Structures are given as structure tokens and as C-alpha cells.
């Protein structure tokens, strides 16, 4: 562990040596945390899930080390619980209304679209405020208008271009998210290129088509063998094979796309005078990790989840270096209120995706 450089960070030489991001957690410890979380959550009919979320995040943040200093997750279980109960309550009302009154439900879905930008902004703000590195909290300042354009309007418009605009929209979304993040009083800056997104999307689509064709071929061969079998047997066989295979392929494709995009974002991001980032995540390796993770989770009926999650997080950390610049010592914390987890929980419950790749 390289732990001494920060205390003397003022010396100019330190800026050239990148620090490796470390993940020091392990699957065995997390398995214990995970299974106890699950059990207590079930026993308390979900109430404990707030404590479970906090404990899991504390475990993962606290085991992520940069330059010898760990990250901290700051939200309290009560904060999470309040937000979650409110969000679930709203979701109950929403799903009751939409299943009993489908027409009213359709109108509510429209109203929900107006709330999406707000949920995304507030959710990002909360999760940034709850992240700390060396006594400095992260922050997020996005505007409703920009979020509306990037998350709702442009994706909708791209439907009419047969999704040809979509990679560009995704680029705008990533740029919006990352350039509005702040570390204390220092903003993050990113320069993203649309062509990287188009290249990644094209590659994934071609691979996807190739995989579909191979799978189709494999299935017609399998189907050919059982010409007139006991119907149920063949069907079961198909079902048990197709779900893991589907997840395997989707995860692999997801891995390739995410790795390419993550490398692009981090390699083009910096915090002025504080840090520069380097990501060297090999797409094929990450794809293999995600795909085998998915297969392991399905084949063990979920038991491999802790192992898989640790494996993924470790791979991400291993592929990340940060160059700390001399200004890293002079960041000041800024005050930004974010006491409610409601928006983040609502985004979760209503399946509004906010992910920081």
C-alpha cells in the first residue's frame, strides 16, 4: 500500500506517479454480510433493507482505497428507510391505480416522465453527497432543464431516428452526469467523443447479431435431435438452457460496451489541479467476468452473488489509476444540503436508471 505520498503531496515529483485504486474486500466476508442482510430483511419484511443497503455500501466504499485512504459512505439507515418507505408508498399508489384503472395509469406514466429529471438530479445529488474521500464530500449540481433534455426529450426523439441518434444521446447523458460532479469545490471536467460511443455501439450490435445467429443455429440443432420427444421434457430442457444462455450473452455484450465507455470517460476526465484518471479495462476480460458472473449466479440460484460482485468490483479497481496532482491537498468541502434519499429510492423503485458506469 502506497501510503506515505499524500502527507508530502506538496512536492512536485508526486504528480507523475499514478496511484493504483485498490479493492481490499473479499468474497468470504461479503458473503457473511450478504446472507445476514438477506435473512434480517426477510424476517423484518423489508424494513432491515435500509440497514442492509448502508452496511453493504460501507463495506464496498471502505474497502476501496486510493493512495492509502479509503472512501466513506455516509448515509444513515434511517435516512434510507424514510426515503424508501415514501418511494414504495408512492409506488403502491401508482401500481394500484395503473392496474385497476389502466387509462388513468397511462396518464400517470406521462406525469411520471416529468418527474424523471428531478428524480435523477436529486438521486445523483444524494449519492454524491453521501460519498466522501479524505473529509471531502462529492457533490452534484445539474439543472432540471438539462436533465429533461438529456434523459427524456432526446431519447424520445431518437426513437424517430430508428435509434441512430442513441449513441450520441448516451454520450450527452454521460457528459451531463460527469461534468456536474464536484469533489468538494473542484468540478470534474470531461471531454467525450461521440464517435467512441458509435464505435462501441456498432461493435456490440455486430457481436450481438453474430451471437444470435450462433445461438439460433445451436438451438435448431438441439431441436433437430429431439424430433418427437416427450413434449414437456424438450420444453423444460429448452427453458433451463435459454435463460442462462441469454443472461450470459447479454452480460458479455454489456461488459464490452461498459468497458469501452468507462475507459473513454475516465481517460478523458479530470478534476482541475486535483486528479487525472486512467482506466485500462480490457473489454474482452470484463465481458468474460460479467458473463461468467451471470452464469455462476444463475447456476447457484443466487448464492454466487457476493463472490460475483466482489470479483467485478475488484476488476474495476484493478483497471483504474489516479494521478493525484499537488492541488489534491487544497480542496475545501462545500456545503450542499441533501438529507433525503427519497429521490434516489424513487428512481430505484420506478426503475429509472442512474448509473455511473
Amino acid at each position: 500500500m502506497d501510503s506515505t505520498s499524500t502527507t508530502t503531496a506538496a512536492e512536485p515529483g508526486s504528480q507523475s506517479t499514478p496511484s493504483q485504486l485498490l479493492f481490499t474486500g473479499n468474497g468470504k466476508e461479503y458473503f457473511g454480510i450478504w446472507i445476514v442482510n438477506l435473512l434480517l430483511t426477510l424476517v423484518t419484511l423489508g424494513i432491515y433493507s435500509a440497514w442492509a443497503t448502508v452496511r453493504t455500501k460501507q463495506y464496498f466504499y471502505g474497502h476501496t482505497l486510493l493512495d492509502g485512504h479509503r472512501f466513506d459512505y455516509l448515509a444513515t439507515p434511517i435516512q434510507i428507510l424514510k426515503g424508501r418507505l415514501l418511494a414504495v408508498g408512492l409506488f403502491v399508489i401508482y401500481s394500484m391505480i395503473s392496474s385497476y384503472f389502466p387509462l388513468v395509469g397511462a396518464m400517470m406514466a406521462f406525469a411520471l416522465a416529468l418527474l424523471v429529471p428531478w428524480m435523477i438530479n436529486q438521486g445523483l445529488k444524494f449519492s454524491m453527497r453521501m460519498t466522501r474521500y479524505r473529509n471531502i464530500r462529492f457533490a452534484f449540481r445539474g439543472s432540471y432543464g438539462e436533465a429533461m433534455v438529456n434523459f427524456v426529450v432526446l431519447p424520445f426523439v431518437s426513437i424517430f431516428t430508428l435509434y441512430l441518434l442513441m449513441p450520441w444521446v448516451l454520450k450527452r447523458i454521460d457528459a451531463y452526469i460527469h461534468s456536474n460532479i464536484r469533489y468538494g469545490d473542484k468540478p470534474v471536467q470531461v471531454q467525450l467523443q461521440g464517435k467512441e460511443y458509435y464505435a462501441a455501439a456498432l461493435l456490440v450490435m455486430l457481436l450481438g447479431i453474430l451471437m444470435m445467429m450462433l445461438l439460433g443455429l445451436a438451438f435448431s440443432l438441439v431441436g433437430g435431435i429431439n424430433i418427437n420427444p416427450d413434449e414437456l421434457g424438450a420444453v423444460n430442457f429448452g427453458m433451463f438452457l435459454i435463460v442462462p444462455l441469454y443472461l450470459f450473452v447479454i452480460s458479455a455484450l454489456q461488459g464490452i460496451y461498459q468497458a469501452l465507455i468507462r475507459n473513454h470517460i475516465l481517460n478523458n476526465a479530470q478534476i482541475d489541479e486535483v486528479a487525472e484518471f486512467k482506466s485500462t479495462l480490457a473489454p474482452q476480460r470484463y465481458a468474460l467476468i460479467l458473463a461468467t458472473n451471470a452464469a455462476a449466479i444463475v447456476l447457484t440460484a443466487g448464492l454466487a452473488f457476493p463472490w460475483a460482485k466482489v470479483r467485478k468490483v475488484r476488476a474495476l479497481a484493478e483497471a483504474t489509476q489516479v494521478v493525484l496532482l499537488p492541488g489534491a491537498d487544497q480542496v475545501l468541502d462545500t456545503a450542499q444540503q441533501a438529507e433525503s434519499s427519497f429521490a434516489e429510492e424513487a428512481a430505484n423503485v420506478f426503475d429509472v436508471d442512474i448509473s455511473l458506469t
Partner: protein
Amino acid sequence: MIRGYFYQPNSSRVQEAIARLNDSHIAVYADDECVCESSVETLQVSAHLPGQASELTFTDGARFVPLDVAHRWSFQSGKSSLLAKLESNLVLIVCALVATPVLLYALLFKLVPGIAVTAVQTVPDAVVEQMGQQSMALIERTVLLPSDLSEKEQAAVEQLWLDTVSQLDLSAQKYRVDVYRSEHFGANAFALPHGQVVVTDELARLLADNPDALRAILLHEIGHVERMHSVRLASQAAVASIAIAMLVGDMDIVAEVVLGSGSALLDLQFSQNMEWEADNYALAQLHRLGYSGEHFAQALESLAELGEEHEQSWLKYLSTHPSLQERIEHARSYTPSP
């Protein structure tokens, strides 16, 4: 003497430091200079997590984190270490491994349907009426076309329906039948929660020569309405999605797919049970009105013959109705319970 890092309040500055603990007083030294001191009562100690040193937060926001990742403070409350002990206790982990699937099953397959059934009883009639009308409006717009049947054929269905409803002493105001053409449904009938039953042209033609068989099908649909199956399905879906939302919190896509297929399975089982309930309702009424299960069996057989042609897809496995063969046998062997 404990070595660690001292983090200054509201700043990214870090110093290597040493903490000295005397009884209930702690002092932190950096470069032989005291940077912070406090009595332990005013300190906040972080939660006890495996592989992470317990850090101290002072009232002004400064923090001290020991270098030794296993470090715990003598004044730390035992409460916070309880969870960590549980999480590393092998016996408990094994128990949890057994108990979790059992609890999950009980929750999703017993408690959720239980709550859903109870919730149904509290749904006001006006809501059921609205639910039916709005669903019908959506279905009509998307997959139904005006019927091609002649006036006479339509009148026959209508007459059969009125007879059946009046024989059952049900309100002819609530229960009504409509005939539509639909490629989506093929030969089929379905019931909406407020008492409207839709029969497709294909089904009416298929059973035109065997009105008693059509009556049996209509009785099955009335069974769905009488037992409030749509309302139950909706409330089941709502309760299940709440349960899953509470449980999942923040899992990734794979976990969602696994749980999602679990709840699809649940829906499937639930709706299969409903089909049996509707079948039994139809069979009981057939017997009461002086017909027999044979009529229902005939109707199912006609449908089965039709199905041979285009329902060979293996997705049929996931269809909501139990196997036709089973239902035909059940209809033939049915004897009403006294």
C-alpha cells in the same frame, strides 16, 4: 499509541499521526504536535466492518483512522460488533442459507397471495367497474375488431347468454356478452372484472352446432368474474411488486432477472389455480342446471383440435392455462361435492 491518519475538518489535508489514549481522554499528535484532543464520550466511532479499522470522528468533523485495519477501540460499544460477529459465524450462516429460501418462498407464495386475497375484499364495486371498463377500452382499441358474424349467429350467442345468466339468478345488468373478431385471440373467450364477457367469432363458429358446449365455456368465464380473478391478479401483482421493491433495494440486472422470473412463475401458478377454480365453478353450475361435465369436455376438445395446428411453439409451456388434456379428464370425472 496508535498509528494512523488524521484528516482535518472540511479539508482534503491528511497528516500521519499518532493517537494516545489515557482512560477517557484521547489526543492525536502529528509531527510531535497535538492536533486534536477530546474526551471519548464526545467521539463518534464508526460501525464495525470486517477488514476496516474503526475510525473516530471528532465534534468538529476531524477524523482519525488507524492504520491497522483490524483496530478496534476499547471504549467502542459492543452493540456494533454484534452484527460483525453474526456475519462471520459459520453456524449462523448455514442456518441463514436454509432459512432464507424458506422465508422467501413463504413470503412470495403464501404471504403475498394472502394479502392480495384480503385486499380484494376491500376493493369497492365502483373500482372494479372502472377497472373493467378501462381494460376493455384498451383491449378493444388494440386487438379487437367488429364481429363478422351474421345477426342471427350473434343473436344465438346473446340468447344463450341471457338464458344462462337468468338460470344462475345473476343480474343481467351486470353480466353482458359481446362478440368480436380478433386475430390476436383466435378461438377464445375472456372475462373482464365488471362482468363483461367477450366471445370471439372463431369460438362462436366453432361451437355453433354445440350450444351446450358454448354454455360451458361461458360458465367458465362467469366463474372468473364471480371469483374476482382479475382483481385478485391485479392486487397480487401490486403486492408482489411492492414485496420485490422492498427486498431488492439495489441489486444488479442478474438478480433482477432471477427475482423477476420468480415472480413470473408466481403469476403463472396463481393464474393456473384460477383456471382450475373457474373450471370447477363451471362444472358445478353445469351439474346444478342439469347439464354435465361432458359438455365442457367437448368444448375443450374442440379447442384442443384447433390448437394442434398453431400452438406448437414451446412457449406454450408458459401459457396460463393448465394442460387441456388434464382439464378434459377433470371435466369428465367431475362429481359435484354435496
